[in-house]
């Protein structure tokens, strides 16, 4: 019995629906069987909240809400209709909740779809308006006024005679122009010869142009390789300075070398006032027996590999100075006692002016030259001091140098041209001098005997004062740039002394254990100065506790401080 197969057939018929229904028909007064029995079984009904858009009620609602009539796309409605019909027919398995969620989702999506083309017809139960406002920044008024264009007053009286005069003048000018034109016709012949000249020049111009470009490129290359140094030059600040109270640092920046100069020693340095990266170097020899001529070079900081200008001289250059206003004039003092003035603007390698034995050149090496302010006839003047005991002022008059002895140095006092005394007093050898920054007439001369004389340009027979400064030749004497009374002197007797010119004894003395070659005040601070000895460079800052600022271990001899940059320059 268990093996018996029983077949079952699934049909769409509702098993609960009656197969035959008989109804009493009042019309025919008899029982009639209904042929078709409805097999529809409704499992679940949910009343939806959707209204067809075009139905009466919806239309009424819309009118009440004031929404415009819609000619909505038919697809949306067709879809909603289908959804509406399908849901009751699908068999329920999860229960009513799934259906409800499904139905609610669909009204949302249907409602949102028409949004694109119509205003939102959202029902008031599920949707509510919310709004919020961000914080707006407060507004500010800003106004500014530019400077108005500058104005001046103008006044004129316009009258007939003024107009007439103006016309007359105009006529005269025109006549003059006509005359000039006639004379220029004559000059046309000259022009043809000039044209030939210009042809030649254009050829050399090409090379000249290349020259200029190559110069710029050379500088660029040098600056690129030395970029670190250039940055240090401008902005060097050693942070370790904070930790060492008494000491600072001196940073060697560039080395300027030119092959041919190896046999020479640097004897002079000077910065150029106008072009602040330019400086001049004088080369010669300190050795008495070995005098081999000299040179002077112009270097620019922008190109440390090669000098800008080179001048050869027959004798060793001992000192040089660049004119503070006319920075193309360089005064040079030589080992043989000559002085010369070079004009850097001219291409010639010869000096513009040169002193000879006739014009009163020195008989000993000139140790220092210095430009002074132009004299009353607007001629340039410079002073020189030499070992022959004379301080001479040279005036540049047209093509000549005219010398005037300012003062003659002697051991006892100034030489007076008396018949008896002139022969006896011996001549003292001047080695250095310096002019007061503010008082034009006052200057100091340092001598080989170690004395410093304070002199005035106006008194040629007497010193104003003499200081017994050192026991060996005074190598440099310099006034302080700021303090009108202070000057500093250094000597081969290992000492640097600071003086007040009204007091006979030095204010400070520094013993530097080696012959001091040169000393210079800092141009930007009245208490800082630098000194250079045969084996070291020193920078000093005078403070209530006088102390050393820096130390360095190199062989240097000369030092000059630039007026614009806090940089020392030495060889």
């Amino acid at each position, binding site marked *: 019995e268990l093996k018996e197969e029983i077949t079952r057939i699934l049909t769409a018929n509702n098993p609960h629906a009656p197969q035959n229904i008989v109804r009493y028909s009042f019309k025919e007064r008899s029982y009639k069987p209904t042929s078709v029995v409805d097999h529809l079984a409704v499992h679940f009904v949910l009343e939806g909240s959707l209204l067809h858009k075009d139905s009466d009620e919806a239309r009424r609602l819309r009118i009440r809400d004031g929404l415009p009539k819609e000619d909505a796309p038919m697809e949306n409605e067709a879809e909603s209709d289908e959804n509406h019909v399908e849901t009751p027919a699908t068999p329920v398995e999860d229960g009513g909740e799934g259906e409800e969620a499904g139905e609610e989702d669909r009204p949302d999506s249907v409602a949102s779809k028409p949004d694109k083309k119509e205003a939102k017809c959202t029902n008031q139960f599920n949707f509510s308006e919310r709004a919020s406002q961000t914080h707006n920044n407060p507004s500010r008024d800003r106004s500014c006024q530019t400077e108005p*264009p500058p*104005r*001046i007053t*103008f*006044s004129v009286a316009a*009258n*007939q005679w003024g*107009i007439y005069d103006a*016309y007359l003048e105009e006529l005269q000018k025109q006549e003059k122009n006509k005359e000039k034109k006639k004379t220029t016709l004559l000059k046309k012949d000259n022009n043809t010869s000039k044209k030939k000249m210009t042809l030649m020049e254009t050829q050399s111009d090409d090379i000249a142009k290349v020259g200029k470009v190559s110069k710029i490129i050379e500088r660029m290359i040098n600056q690129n390789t030395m970029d670190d140094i250039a940055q240090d030059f401008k902005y060097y600040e050693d942070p370790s300075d904070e930790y060492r109270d008494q000491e600072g640092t001196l940073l060697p920046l560039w080395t300027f070398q030119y092959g041919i100069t190896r046999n020479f020693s640097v004897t002079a340095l000077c910065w150029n006032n106008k072009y602040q990266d330019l400086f001049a170097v004088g080369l010669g020899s300190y050795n008495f027996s070995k005098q081999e001529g000299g040179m002077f070079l112009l270097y620019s900081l922008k190109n440390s590999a090669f000098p800008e200008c080179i001048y050869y001289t027959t004798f060793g250059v001992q000192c040089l100075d660049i004119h503070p206003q006319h920075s193309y004039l360089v005064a040079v003092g030589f080992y043989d006692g000559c002085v010369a003035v070079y004009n850097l603007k001219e291409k010639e390698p010869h000096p513009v002016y040169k002193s000879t034995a006739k014009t009163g050149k020195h008989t000993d090496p000139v140790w220092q030259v210095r430009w002074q302010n132009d004299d009353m006839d607007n001629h340039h003047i410079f002073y020189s001091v030499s070992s022959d005991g004379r301080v001479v002022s040279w005036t540049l008059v047209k093509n000549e140098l005219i010398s005037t002895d300012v003062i003659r140095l002697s051991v006892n006092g100034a030489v007076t041209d008396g018949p008896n005394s002139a022969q006896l007093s011996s001549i003292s050898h001047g080695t250095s001098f310096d002019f007061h920054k503010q008082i034009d007439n006052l200057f100091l001369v340092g001598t080989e005997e170690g004395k410093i004389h304070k002199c005035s340009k106006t008194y040629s027979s007497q010193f104003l004062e003499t200081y017994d400064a050192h026991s060996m030749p005074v190598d440099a004497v310099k006034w302080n740039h700021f303090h009108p009374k202070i000057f500093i002197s250094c000597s081969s007797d290992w000492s640097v002394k600071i003086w007040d010119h009204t007091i006979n004894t030095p204010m400070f003395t520094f013993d530097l254990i080696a012959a001091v070659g040169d000393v210079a005040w800092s141009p930007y601070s009245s208490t800082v100065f630098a000194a250079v000895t045969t084996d070291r460079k020193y920078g000093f800052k005078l403070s209530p506790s006088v102390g050393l600022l820096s130390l360095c271990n190199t062989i240097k001899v000369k030092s000059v401080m630039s007026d614009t940059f806090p940089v020392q320059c030495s060889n």
Partner: protein
Amino acid sequence: MPEEMRVETMELCVTACEKFATNNESAAKMIKESMDKKFGSSWHVVIGEGFGLEVTHEVKNLLYMFFGGSLAVCVWKCS
């Protein structure tokens, strides 16, 4: 006055004075209006045969010229 401006203004004055040879006021009006359009406000023009003048003008914006042997024209800008 800058060269270009000067040349233009002179030409304009000559045109205006030739056009309104009898009426200085209209000539001045024409010059003033064209200057305002070309070079910005605000310009002032005086044309006459005899007058004295003391004005404040913006730097480099003044022209004083003679025309026709008897007429003097002064044009300046001062806003």
